[in-house]
């Protein structure tokens, strides 16, 4: 077999993805993601535990009995519903224990920064190749679509892997704490991880779209972060004026995603497809 013989697009994408994942692991990007996301998650978990302990202490000081976690959860969900954070239907699902409040709290607080971390570890994977023109060596052997698919899959596997490692380790650490309802968490975890797979996929695709679009690594990082913030802020403000506008960005759908609500899954899949398609169009049209 000669180098000239064209391997299939899927085989090319697989090879690029594998090389990308290995390269990211060796360059310690995965470790950076594990450490930063791990630190954030640990802080969020610590805060949740602290709040639980404080509430117990306050109740004890007021002469009340120690409150059960299920009661705290019910109160928290009421609060979320009254503030408009979740729909009554979603509130019922939360109340039924589909997503333990402690887990929701940790996921919700860390999900603000996770997209930025995903961007940070992957912003120069394509734009770095373009700016140094290494793509001129690579893309005479691999079709642009396979190259993009490989980059997205490699980045996604590393990001999702890092998130799952952090969550697994911290769940293990949290095993001994009262705040934690192990049975509920164990049941919810597969759903959460499937949701996280989609969550990370959207922001990996977003990162690669920015990289293909802006080509210079620093510009990719800067504008990528600015656009992320702008999307969140703009849809939040728009949602204040007209509710449906607040739901056009994925930021409003993540809670439902972790319960695998079909609508939320559809929204995340749609955004992943849009970002990948845009990246593909830009990369195909781009002079290298």
């Amino acid at each position, binding site marked *: 077999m000669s180098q000239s*013989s064209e391997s299939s697009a899927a085989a090319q994408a697989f090879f690029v993805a594998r090389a990308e994942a290995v390269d990211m692991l060796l360059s310690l990007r995965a470790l950076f993601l594990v450490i930063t996301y791990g630190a954030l998650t640990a802080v969020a978990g610590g805060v949740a535990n602290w709040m639980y302990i404080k509430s117990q202490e306050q109740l004890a000081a007021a002469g009340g009995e120690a409150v059960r976690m299920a009661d705290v959860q019910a109160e928290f969900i009421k609060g979320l519903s009254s503030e408009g954070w979740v729909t009554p239907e979603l509130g019922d699902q939360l109340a039924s224990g589909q997503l333990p409040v402690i887990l929701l709290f940790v996921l919700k607080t860390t999900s603000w920064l996770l997209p930025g971390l995903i961007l940070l570890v992957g912003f120069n994977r394509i734009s770095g190749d373009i700016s140094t*023109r290494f793509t001129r*060596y*690579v893309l005479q052997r691999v079709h642009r679509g396979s190259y993009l698919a490989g980059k997205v899959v490699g980045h996604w596997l590393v990001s999702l892997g890092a998130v799952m490692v952090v969550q697994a380790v911290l769940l293990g650490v949290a095993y001994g704490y009262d705040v934690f309802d192990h049975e509920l968490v164990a049941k919810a975890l597969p759903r959460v991880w499937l949701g996280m797979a989609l969550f990370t996929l959207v922001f990996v695709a977003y990162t690669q779209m920015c990289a293909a679009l802006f080509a210079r690594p620093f510009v990719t990082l800067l504008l990528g972060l600015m656009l992320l913030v702008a999307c969140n802020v703009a849809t939040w403000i728009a949602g204040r004026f007209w509710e449906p506008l607040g739901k056009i960005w994925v930021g409003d759908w993540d809670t439902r995603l972790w319960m695998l609500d079909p609508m939320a899954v559809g929204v995340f899949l749609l955004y992943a497809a849009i970002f990948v398609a845009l990246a593909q169009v830009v990369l195909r049209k781009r002079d290298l």
Partner: protein
Amino acid sequence: MRPAVELINVTKDYGRVRAVDGLSLSVPEESLYGLIGPNGAGKTTTFAMLSGFLRPTQGEVKVRGRTLTPGQPPVGLALALPQDAALPDHKRVLATLIYLARLGGMPKPEAEARSTRALQQVGLQDLADRKVSQLSHGQRRRVGIAQTLVGDDEVIMLDEPTAGLDPRTAVELGQLIKTLSVDRTIILSSHNLAEVESLCTHAAILDRGKLVMSGTMDEIKGTGGLFTVMLAKALAAPTTVQAAVSALAGVAKVEVAPNADALRVTTESTEGMDDLTNQVLRVLMDNGATVKSVERGQSLTERFMQATRGAGG
């Protein structure tokens, strides 16, 4: 014979600047084709369009009969050494070659064996485990050439392959390129006219984005109807010699160099060039001249200067 590479009325604009203007070229199979021109002539842009790195604004590029989708590299048809593309600094030399070979679908053992052989071909076998960041400019260039040798691609495109190399390495690389051209087509873009003249079988001269001349090296140098006799010392009676040579049948024009140490003869046809050359040499020796050498046609440098007269570069 089917052309290995064809450009059909190709134009490339960068905004309002037209870098390549309606260029049509045909590169014969198994030729060593030189692409030359002054700075800004459009060589690198043409090269980048051939390699699929740039999308032509209009026109068509064919490699081995297959029309390339605009901007899509000739994957599996040709390999190129880009002029200003960097290899990743953090990777090791052999690992980089193996990675690139495997991207093209080569199995690992074959990629390893061929990459090792390619490194030997460019004389870098001792640096296989060195990081790219630790290589000199010339060594990086040679790694760039090595990556085109790993496969069996019948078309290889080398953009300024010897630029920045020391003379010895450049000569060795030239010999390697000549060897490789035996059973494949090589397109070579270069500023080094002596290198192109000594290596290439064909050439195209570009100027301001347009093709001004192309063909075999003999055609370009005009060897069919022109030869120059270089003399060891100046002629004692240049006017007499000029008149005697002009009187020979088949001679169209005779020019004597200002210091009378060379004679340029233009013939009426390409027929009987050898006989006519002998007759001219006889006239010269009869007039006491000592002949140093005879060169058919003009040098590529002369033709280049004529073809690109007035160019800025």
